[in-house]
């Protein structure tokens, strides 16, 4: 494992989510909504770097600040 290997990590807080679905509109390959209550469902915790802009856009737009995007050091587990 090389130390300058950054990977993208996305986390969501289901308690904060108000189900407006903006994340799904931004990147439907990373986010979905639970059938039972419309709350955000993370499809990929470690999306491809190519999704960075979109995922960051989703985090910025999320009205309840329920999405966090980080660049973490290391390889995806």
């Amino acid at each position, binding site marked *: 494992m090389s130390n300058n290997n950054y990977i993208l990590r996305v986390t969501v807080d289901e308690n904060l989510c*108000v*189900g*407006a*679905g903006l994340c*799904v509109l931004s990147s439907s390959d990373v986010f979905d909504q*639970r059938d039972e209550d*419309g*709350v955000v469902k993370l499809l990929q915790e470690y999306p491809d770097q190519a999704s960075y802009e979109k995922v960051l856009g989703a985090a910025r737009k999320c*009205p309840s*600040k329920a999405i966090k995007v980080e660049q973490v050091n290391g390889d995806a587990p």
Partner: protein
Amino acid sequence: MSACPFSKASFPMPRQCPFLPPQEYQQFQQQPGAAQVRMWDGSSAWLFTRYDDVRAVLGDNRFSGNPSIPGFPSLSAARNAVLDLEPAFIRMDPPDHGRHRRMLTKEFMIKRVGAMRPRIESIFNRLLDEMLHKGPPANLVEDLFLPLTSEVIAGLLDVPNKDHGFFQEQSRLKVLLDVDPSIPKAASERILNYLDALVTERAKAPEGKEDLISRLIIEQVRPGHLSHRELVIMAELLLMAGHETTANQMALGVHSFLSNQDQLALLRNDPSLLRNAVEEMLRYHTIVHYNAFRVALEDVEVAGQLIRKGEGVIALIAGANHDPEAFEQPQKFDITRKADHHVAFSYGIHQCLGQPLARVELQVVFATLFERIPTLRFAVPQEQIEGKGDHFVQGLETLPVTW
């Protein structure tokens, strides 16, 4: 800004151009911190007009949307009369707000609403057929947009077709600001009484029904999570929030395209601009133009301004959406700009629940209208088409067109 530097500006302030926010917002944006404004009743409120500041206020739950808390800004006596009635979750704070909103979020999920698109298209095409059959001229608000948005939301709640005129009229009266308070109050009460009877009837046999009210009766009312009265109030919010707003946005969107033919040509040549065009019309018009009023639950500092507990705040989404720091040349209607970070649906926990539905309805209209009627144009001189002005929701009273 008022001429005298020692007096506060009044809120709301009149628009100079019916389709753009008051020029004063631009001046406020150039000053640091918040501006103090005077309300009709002599009270003061803090006004935020910059994109970052508006989002900071609306994203902070130390600001409450509950109008019964002392210090909550008052827009007019007529508006007070509406806000005095029992609150729906749009006026609740956490945790009650989330409890109620979560009962509905699955109904407005992207995939659920996406599945409604074919139905929305077929309603719109049927209404267009009827209008074309009658021939020009037409009034798009009355002939197309109100019937479309009403049928969509009423379909979700299973409110009978014959009653659409009734709830359209009540919702029109409910948003009037500058009238005798008994007018909007009576309108709210009429619609609540109507829905009370409808919910009572529906509760007799909700099993096997497809509508949202029946589902809520089974999932929430029967297990005791929601009272009969709370359901009535929730249904009223959906019915009212769901049609008038979207219909007004459609009318203003058509107005923007007809008065910016270059933008219409762009959309015609490249239908992939449709989604962004819808975001741009939401941004440009920001029809819920006095949104959002809040009151501080504790001392909070925003943009260097200390707001004390109990002070009223107006975080103007119409200011934010025309902040040059967030949108270059904000006064220009430009469907190619990046617009989807707008706050036309507000921001924070109260951000519009129905936005996926509003988006799909708008996309259907603007994908279809100019394609089916390529020669669509105003039927009267353009200057005669006026904005609604002093209403809670900005829009057009009528939109006379011909083809």
